[in-house]
């Protein structure tokens, strides 16, 4: 049954027990993304790691379907305290995997490879991408901020 390919056990686990949910108090950038067709939303904060400020700490709060929630939880596992480059590579690969132009790569996506079943349901692809697009937006803002601050120095 196709359905079980999308709702794999590992997805439902992330959905029921999401990792890293809850917003950090301080942050360098915050974004709020919505999926206008279904109303799923995520607020995502990115904080530059005080030790290595090219690494980005992630926190989020969200509401939505199992796919969008599980996907955010997986994102936390994969991208918390990672660089923009690592994250962008993961986002690109996720998009490519969901468009079925790349085979799932566990090294890049971790549990995220279980999202491959979503590619059968075009209307759900944006659920799977919501958190990742928000992360990319926030990460660029968080780093850009500094660039502009530096420029003013």
């Amino acid at each position, binding site marked *: 049954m196709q359905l079980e390919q999308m709702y794999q056990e590992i997805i439902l686990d992330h959905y029921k027990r999401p990792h890293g949910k809850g917003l950090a108090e301080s942050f360098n950038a915050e974004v709020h993304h919505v999926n206008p067709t279904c109303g799923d939303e995520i607020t995502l904060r990115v904080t530059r790691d005080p030790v290595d400020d090219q690494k980005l700490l992630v926190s989020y709060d969200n509401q939505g*379907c199992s796919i969008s929630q599980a996907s955010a939880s997986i994102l936390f596992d994969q991208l918390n305290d990672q660089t923009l480059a690592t994250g962008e590579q993961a986002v690109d690969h996720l998009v490519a995997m969901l468009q079925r132009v790349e085979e799932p790569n566990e090294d890049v996506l971790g549990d995220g490879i279980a999202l491959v079943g979503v590619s059968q349901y075009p209307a759900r692809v944006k659920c799977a991408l919501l958190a990742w697009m928000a992360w990319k937006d926030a990460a660029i803002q968080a780093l850009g901020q500094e660039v502009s601050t530096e420029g003013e120095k």
Partner: protein
Amino acid sequence: MSLLDVATLRKDFPILSRSVRDGKNLIYLDSGATSQKPTSVLDAERNFYETHNAAVHRGAHQLAEEATIAFENARANIASFIGAQTNDVVFTKNATEALNLVAYSFLNATLKSLTGAPLPAGAQRFVLAQGDEVVVTEMEHHSNLVPWQELCAKTGAVLKWLGLTDDGRLNYADLDTVITARTKVVSFTHQSNLLGTINDVAKVSAAARAVGAIVVLDACQSIPHMPVSVEKLDVDFIAWSGHKMLGPMGIGCLWGRNELLASMPPFISGGSMIETVTMEASTFAAPPQRFEAGVPMAAQAVALSAAVDYLQAIGMDKVAAHEHELTTAAIAALSEIKGVRIIGPTDSHDRGSAVSFVVDDIHPHDVGQVLDSLGIAVRVGHHCAWPVCRRYDVPATTRATFYIYNDLNDVKALAAGIKQAQEFFGSN
């Protein structure tokens, strides 16, 4: 037997015999979004293109004559379906454009009155002053909310709204406080596309009339499903879409009181809506042409007219009775399932066939996905009525809507499907 002969009707809808998701029979419960089309409607459109196609109101050759006659006959037939005069029905691309047409009449009359540009006699009723009020309800489809928000943002008018009761009805107690001497227009839905609620048009209209406000009715979810007559409804404008009543996409209608249509400045302007044109200035045709700029969707009008014929052959009272029976059954079936909450009235009195619900611990999107895997097409999300979701504190709902080609088996399949979703997600 009050039910329609659904098995026979279904033969007229080719799409209903297709299968989805690994060979499941299609159970289409999304007619609230758009209805399926019977063969007679598709044939009418095709026949127009294959035998009479020409630009209407623009030519004197035989095809142009035939196309124009077909187009205007379609208008007459569609108008008579709601007991209206032919020339009081304007064709738009969908109900959304029809509602915007009215909202923009207020904007354009207001602006032209400020700049002193020529306005038709009577246009004063559409002129808004700073602080004038526009009233909607909390159960509106975005298409009957956002255009009014936009109007207010541009004119300094104030948007107000009637709230909802906990059981999914309009809070009529609000009428006295929300509608005031400053209210210039009251625009509300006949039937909620999310809750299913059928509103008491007379009650709202009376309150609007008492202060001299113009009354606009969004009939997208009523005209396809029950007898609607302009004579019985005390309103000034009625907007609806063709695609929800067995008609094609790309056509909607606005009915308006003749004297109001005549007093409105144009909205979309260009070819075919003019009387005279010079480089310096133009004057405009009488309604309905004034509001139908450019080559219109004549083929779609002809097809929508065929949809009207189809519905009339069944009888709108029978359509309503049939849906009422399915709705009652659906409410009963869903109420029996533990963990299911219906968003909207749970009695079937003054209630149409939209049955929205949430299931404990399963997101509406996921419920919909399980139903889809069983061949059951429902809609999930906020149904373009996001404020209703907020009002009832749900992120979204799963919604089933019924039409003439559905029967009690579909209701049973829906209930069984919800239970399967609960099993699948291990809730309940």
